[in-house]
């Protein structure tokens, strides 16, 4: 990233003008949840048991002072030290959720990558109606995951009315999709892959198109076969963008919630639940804000550790990510 920095002269103020607006907006929205999250994770804050006065009337800034006092009072009255973290250590639903998050990231994403790479290579060839294929292959990425959950996860894969189950029944096969934890996670990975593959594919396609044509011409003249030239040149040249796409997808996979929420609701039992979903259910639906926030803090640390390890091991190859 250092190519380009410091090449243009500018005054302090001019430089600040470029970066500060984005920085301040991000900071304003992110700083409160961070500080608040750390504090609330040590409390037994519940939606029904802990009341806030609600929106202060008037302009944002005047309300700020009220708000801080309001929240500080609520935190003081519900403080329970490390109770949440002790509860988490014995919570089997929490462990299942962590395990599922790791499965979605480290089994789901490599699968997405392999399929996406295949599609990108196909699209990068001399084919007729390339535009048609490229638009069609991009389409799944344009649909809301919530609609995907209902339309594919629920309607298409319904065990009674879905087209697949019905056709199977005519052949005397009983199909069901989400009745065991293993099957539920498997089908969720498949549905999620259907949505995510276009994103990886577009990045890989862009990487393929940025490649120097001359090298491949030279290799072809030298008599290198397709297989050889793929493993010796295409794949290594594609490695930086591949790793970028994979790391991005892993990051997104940790946030995965809406498809699972709609399709299995985390079930059967807690078997297909991810941390995001568990936090959402505990904190927002059950109103156990203290415990959910404590889980969110542990989740955040877990994600940061995994991403830092990932970047430290493969990051040097990702030239552009940071």
């Amino acid at each position, binding site marked *: 990233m250092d190519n380009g920095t410091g*090449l*243009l002269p500018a*005054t302090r103020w001019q430089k600040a003008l470029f970066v500060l607006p984005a920085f301040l907006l991000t900071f304003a929205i992110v700083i409160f949840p961070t500080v608040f999250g750390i504090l609330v994770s040590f409390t037994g804050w519940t939606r029904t048991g802990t009341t806030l006065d609600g929106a202060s009337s008037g302009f944002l800034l005047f*309300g700020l002072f009220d708000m801080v006092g309001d929240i500080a009072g609520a935190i003081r009255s519900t403080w329970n030290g490390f109770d949440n973290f002790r509860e988490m250590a014995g919570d089997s639903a929490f462990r299942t959720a962590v395990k599922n998050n790791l499965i979605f990231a480290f089994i789901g994403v490599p699968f997405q990558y392999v399929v996406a790479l295949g599609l990108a290579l196909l699209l990068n060839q001399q084919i007729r109606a390339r535009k048609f294929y490229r638009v069609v292959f*991009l389409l799944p990425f344009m649909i809301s995951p919530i609609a995907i959950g*209902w339309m594919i996860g629920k309607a298409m894969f319904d065990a009674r009315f879905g087209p697949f189950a019905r056709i199977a029944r005519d052949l005397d096969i009983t199909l069901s999709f989400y009745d065991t934890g293993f099957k539920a996670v498997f089908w969720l990975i498949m549905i999620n892959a259907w949505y995510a593959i276009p994103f990886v594919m577009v990045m890989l396609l862009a990487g393929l198109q940025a490649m120097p044509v001359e090298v491949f011409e030279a290799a072809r003249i030298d008599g290198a076969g397709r297989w050889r030239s793929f493993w010796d040149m295409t794949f290594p040249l594609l490695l930086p963008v591949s790793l970028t796409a994979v790391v991005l997808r892993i990051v997104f996979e940790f946030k995965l919630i809406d498809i699972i929420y709609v399709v299995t609701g985390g079930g059967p039992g807690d078997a297909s639940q991810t941390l995001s979903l568990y936090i959402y259910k505990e904190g927002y639906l059950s109103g156990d804000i203290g415990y959910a926030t404590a889980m969110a803090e542990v989740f955040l640390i877990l994600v940061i550790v995994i991403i830092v390890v990932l970047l430290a091991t493969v990051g040097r190859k990702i030239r552009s990510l940071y």
Partner: protein
Amino acid sequence: MTRNPTWLQITTYSLLAIWVVIALFPLYWMVTLSFKNLRLITTGPFFIPWVDFDPVTLGWSDLFESGQRTRFVTAMRNSLICSVGSGLLALVLGSMAGYGLSRFSYRFGIWRNRDISFFFLSQLILPPAAVILPLYILFVESGLYDTLLGMTLLYTVVGLPIVIWIMRDQFNSLPIELEQAALVDGHSAIGAFLRVAAPISAPGMVASFILVVIFSWNEYLFSAVLTSQSAYTLPLLVATQVSSQGVKFWTMAAIGTAAVAPLLVIAIMLERHIVRGLTAGAVK
């Protein structure tokens, strides 16, 4: 040549055809669902309208004539404002930040360019579920709850990291001499950005704008928690088709189809630019 080109072509086109079916069938199924009613869904399966079933417009009339017309129009308008608004805002702020990080050297205390870039990118990691409860309280207390302004600002912040990342690399890939010449001609740094660098970085801008719009258009979790009666968006309307009488799959399918239509137009018009924008910047 050791391989038979016809054999290769046959494989290529069969694989392409298989994936066309995988990509399109669920979408096709959604469109047919929007023309079915409970009887047609629970019997069947019916695949082709007029051939094996008579389409009914139950779902569509629910959206456009009776029942949920007002809610649908509001959700459509809200989604449009939030996604275009956050797309534009993220594009302006993100391009500026990306340009600054590409062209100047910063030193805020111990923070250099690299650290500032990492600060922005690290926001990508933040799982929405981990911040949603504090955000809910922040929004309620600050009056941003259930407002389009709040949702637009939030989606802008969520979209910023990707925009900054694409645009910084886009600017890194441009020759700096043009801007240096502009400075010699008496333009300020801001003038060089607006008149020289910004116009020729359109590919990256189109790609990042589209990515933010797609995200905001389809986002569910924030919208579900941070809106209620007035600022709800289309994905939320999809989710509210579930009632005690059952799931209105036909209305849901109609909303899904209506929601994907504008993005389909964008995809057809700008697909090339998405790939080109990423090619110019982020993947190099």
